[in-house]
């Protein structure tokens, strides 16, 4: 079977942190209610800090709603915050409050971030961003996502160990070197 590869490639619809010409693009398919994604959150933050402008980080939604009943709305809340220009602030808030992700909590986090919380509440009620989240999910299925989180490094699924920061960092640096050579 072909090596699982990211599809579609990172584009203008994606939530991106870091320069477009960074030698390493790290894409995470994640679920805000997933404990392993919660475990990955500080590790991703750490490698972002260590690699600086050498890393571009992208987040796509992959809510496993059958297991995580709050994951879908949490993802939609992040999109609603993104529509107000604050996707990443909400992304961080959700991972930092994984134990409370019911709708009232999501709206409270939006308010605490200084967003228009009523707009976020309405978007959740109306499912404004449900399709966007589903599109991310389906792109993940096509790309070979096999659980949460699944990482792609420069387009290739990363089957190595991300749970140890030093190991993960080594793999990302190796990808940067390969890109430059």
């Amino acid at each position: 079977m072909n090596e699982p590869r990211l599809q579609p490639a990172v584009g203008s619809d994606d939530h991106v942190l870091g320069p477009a010409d960074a030698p390493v693009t790290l894409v995470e398919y994640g679920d805000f209610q997933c404990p392993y994604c919660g475990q990955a959150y500080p590790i991703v933050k750490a490698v972002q800090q260590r690699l600086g402008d050498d890393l571009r980080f992208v987040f796509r939604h992959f809510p496993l709603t059958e297991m995580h009943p709050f994951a879908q709305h949490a993802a939609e809340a992040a999109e609603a915050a993104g529509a107000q220009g604050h996707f990443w602030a909400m992304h961080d808030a959700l991972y930092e409050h994984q134990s409370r992700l019911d709708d009232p909590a999501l709206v409270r986090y939006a308010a605490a971030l200084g967003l228009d919380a009523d707009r976020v509440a309405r978007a959740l009620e109306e499912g404004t961003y449900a399709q966007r989240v589903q599109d991310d999910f389906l792109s993940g299925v096509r790309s070979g996502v096999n659980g949460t989180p699944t990482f792609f490094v420069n387009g290739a699924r990363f089957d190595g160990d991300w749970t140890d920061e030093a190991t993960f960092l080594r793999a990302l640096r190796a990808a940067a070197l390969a890109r430059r050579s």
Partner: protein
Amino acid sequence: MSDPTTQVPVGDVLAPGTPAPDFTLPSAPERALALRELRGRPVILAFYPADWSPVCGDEVALFNQVLPEFRRYGAELLGLSVDGVWCHAAFARQRNLHFPLLADFEPKGAVARRYGAYRAQDGTSERALFVLDGDGVIRWSYLSPIDVNPGADGILRALESLPDRGRTA
């Protein structure tokens, strides 16, 4: 997590073009399912080593979530392991699964052996996937490293490439 490159699968699973061996296995306490009952529709067979182990958990959770996509092709998904029916029932309830788990329990692993998907050294099935067309012929098979959840992309590509007569029923 170990390095997947050190876990190269051994043995050969049944290849595309092979008629899928028929079987009847318990799908619940006092209920059984025969593969031939599903003729006329594509069938996905997902052999996995064991209920409850973390990677399998991810695999069944993923397939459970992707089920609506599989059903768009009219396909049925069956999970198979050597666990017994009560174990499967508890696992399916806890994970909220919407597809049957079949108990390849007695004689242990007999169906997995016929598909080349038994792992004698561990006494479990391999992590192996088969996509059958509506005539019960294997159209795609894949043996995954035991510690790598294979994902659903290969299954979807296989379903896409089935001729339409596979889903006439």
